[in-house]
């Protein structure tokens, strides 16, 4: 091992190995659910998973699967397949690849375990509604829709009571689906674990306020999978406990994720899954670290609405008031808050063709950020899974020019 290799090795986050093991076990469980007499529910990434855990139903996340497809660079082929099936190229690439996967049993795992039911929460977009309708027709299984009206300016009493009532309908739906009574004590316990897990996730993400940062948004994109898929379990709590300890240790021993952190950046929107390595190297070469992002922090941004001791009742609010289900001005406020908290020098926005609710409004957010902070902002045009919407050379030039602007500022560290 050479010296640089050793240094590189030192920078590696140890918990990554554990995380891979946990995810492998999780997917194996899901794949063998039928043999073990367990039910599988497909659920959207913003959906309330806790009642499923309480009912011992295995949640499977097509969006997580989409990310895996993107990261393993199988996106293009599957997107084309979906287009052959009649789905427009302009549709969400998570949806397109998932729909295509069901047809050809494709993807990195040869397809997801078949669902016994589908749980769709539209707090992240209207796309999931249409996508889950497609899957409900394909698998011919019951679909539960949790309708969380968007809160452009406020969270109203009407919305609260509508969503709260649907939580009860959700429970009845699950009771019918697995033919057993809902255990409220167990739900309370799962709720507490979910709360703890999110707290710990928040703690992990906050460690990047330290300079230099012990991890980057690229790591957050990776470590996110557990808080999404296993939220509400002891496994997730234990894991994030360990991860946060490792981050503390890195801070104590001065191990940063990139060798020479000089500039700190904030990322907006989903990752460009098939270019993570290139992007992270690109920024690192500029001594720039993406210390935070608006995407992975969405899985702890509603913590303030959760009542640890009365999870079920607070769920309505916590699941309705998430980053994507609020007005653009409120999203901008969250961005401004992150710019201050993480003390960043620049803002990188991914204009993501696949995600309209995340991307439309970005230009207004960009102007608000420019006006209120004066930090440089760059917009990269891409797509989270479909590489045909990405141009390497154009992105390269934009990042270089953006970094040129950042570097000429005298006030930068």
């Amino acid at each position, binding site marked *: 091992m050479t010296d640089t290799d050793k240094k590189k090795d030192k920078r590696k986050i140890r918990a990554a190995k554990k995380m891979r093991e946990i995810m492998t076990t999780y997917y194996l469980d899901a794949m063998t659910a039928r043999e073990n007499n367990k039910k599988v529910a497909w659920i959207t990434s913003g959906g309330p998973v806790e009642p499923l855990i309480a009912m011992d139903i295995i949640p499977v996340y097509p969006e997580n699967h989409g990310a895996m497809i993107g990261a393993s660079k199988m996106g293009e082929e599957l997107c084309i397949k979906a287009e052959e099936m*009649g789905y427009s190229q*302009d549709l969400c690439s998570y949806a397109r690849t998932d729909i295509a996967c069901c047809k050809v049993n494709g993807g990195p795992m040869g397809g997801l375990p078949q669902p016994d039911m589908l749980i769709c929460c539209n707090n992240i977009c209207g796309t999931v*509604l249409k996508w889950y309708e*497609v899957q409900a*027709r394909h698998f011919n299984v019951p679909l539960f829709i949790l309708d969380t009206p968007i809160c452009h300016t406020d969270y109203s009493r009407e919305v609260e009571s509508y969503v709260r009532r649907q939580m009860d309908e959700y429970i009845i739906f699950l009771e019918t689906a697995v033919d057993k009574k809902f255990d409220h004590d167990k739900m309370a316990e799962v709720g507490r674990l979910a709360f703890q897990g999110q707290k710990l996730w928040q703690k992990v993400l906050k460690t990047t306020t330290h300079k230099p940062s012990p991890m980057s948004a690229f790591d957050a994109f990776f470590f996110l999978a557990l808080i999404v898929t296993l939220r509400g379990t002891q496994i997730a709590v234990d894991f994030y406990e360990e991860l946060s300890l490792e981050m503390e240790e890195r801070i104590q021993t001065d191990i940063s994720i990139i060798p020479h952190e000089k500039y700190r950046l904030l990322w907006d929107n989903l990752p460009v899954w098939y270019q993570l390595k290139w992007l992270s190297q690109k920024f690192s070469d500029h001594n720039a670290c993406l210390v935070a992002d608006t995407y992975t922090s969405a899985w702890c941004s509603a913590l303030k609405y959760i009542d640890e001791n009365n999870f079920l009742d607070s769920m309505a609010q916590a699941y309705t008031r998430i980053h994507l289900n609020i007005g653009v001005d409120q999203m901008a406020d969250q961005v401004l808050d992150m710019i201050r908290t993480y003390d960043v020098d620049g803002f990188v926005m991914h204009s993501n063709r696949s995600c309209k609710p995340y991307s439309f409004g970005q230009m*207004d957010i960009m102007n608000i950020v420019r006006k209120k902070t004066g930090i440089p902002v760059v917009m990269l045009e891409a797509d989270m899974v479909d590489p045909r919407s990405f141009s390497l050379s154009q992105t390269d030039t934009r990042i270089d020019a953006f970094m040129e602007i950042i570097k000429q500022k005298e006030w930068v560290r």
Partner: protein
Amino acid sequence: MKEINPFHAAINDPGGLAAGIKKRSGKILGYMCSYAPEELIHAAGFHPMRLFSSKSDICLAQNHLQAYCCSLVRGVLEDSLAGRLDYLEGMVFPHTCDSIQRLSDIWRLNTKFNFFADVVMPTKLNTKSARTYMTDVLKKFKTDLEKAAEHSITQNDLQNSISLFNRIRRDLSRIYELKSQFPSIIKGTDLFAIIKGSMIMDREELAQRLETIVLLLEKKDPPPYSGKRIILAGSICDMQDIYKLIEASGGSVVADDLCTGNRWFEGSMPENIDPIEALTARYADRAICPAKHSGNTTRGENLLALADTHKVDGVIFATLKFCDPHAFDYPYMKEFLEKSSIKNLHLELDDQQQGLGQLSTRLETFIHMI
């Protein structure tokens, strides 16, 4: 038929029409989605005006919306920012799709009209709690309107509006019925003008004009029709030329499943119950838009039923490019049609589109093929 001229005049110059209405009867509220409760807006004394893109070049809206946003949303924002909608008192945004939802935010942050309301209707329409919520939303909107109008909306106001809109719906349905029965009774471009005009004209005046048109049509003795019977299905169709091209190719639109058509006006509201309940019933039970949910195959079944009722030869899907809800439904609806051996064609439209060359070739080939 000269009685249709006012409709053509209205759709050719909506700005001029709006100026006239503003002068005569006051304040205008704009909307873009057929789930906007027009009856309530009207009962409050406002003129409900559906907005379409003027199809001008997109310049100012470029600063707010990326190129992968549909031409309707970009076009209306452009009109607003360019001052072409200055006649509006304000805007009403019912929950529609992701794009219109974000347009609502962008509109709120970048325009200065007196009135603005998000009327976030439920997405799910087939449950009791969703209907209760819808009633709550309508009541809240009523209060907002009352504040803006500075007077309360009485039961009587609302009943009157409901019966006026029921008259409009009834007559539009009758015109559609006649068109299906005798496709040559009225030209497609005229039908288009009537429908589009009905969404923007003064409603009292409109109700009278429609009555006259129905009477005149019923007296006509149209020649028998031997061309192809077509359904136009999709999002909005704001392209008059499509009707013209279909007829030039030997077809006729005898029914539609459009947001600017049947989905907007079909059915009527019960007049003998609490008006807000009546509104809820109507908006929850009407032919559904793909951005809403009431069952997984509702729209496919509706389309098949429509095809059966109107004995059609083919279906033309006309959707806007970048319209996600429709793009998601298209494959299964196509499959439904194909299982019943109904020929179909998909046109992806864009408000900015100019040349009809390719479009006309495709339409002609399709109609000759069926």
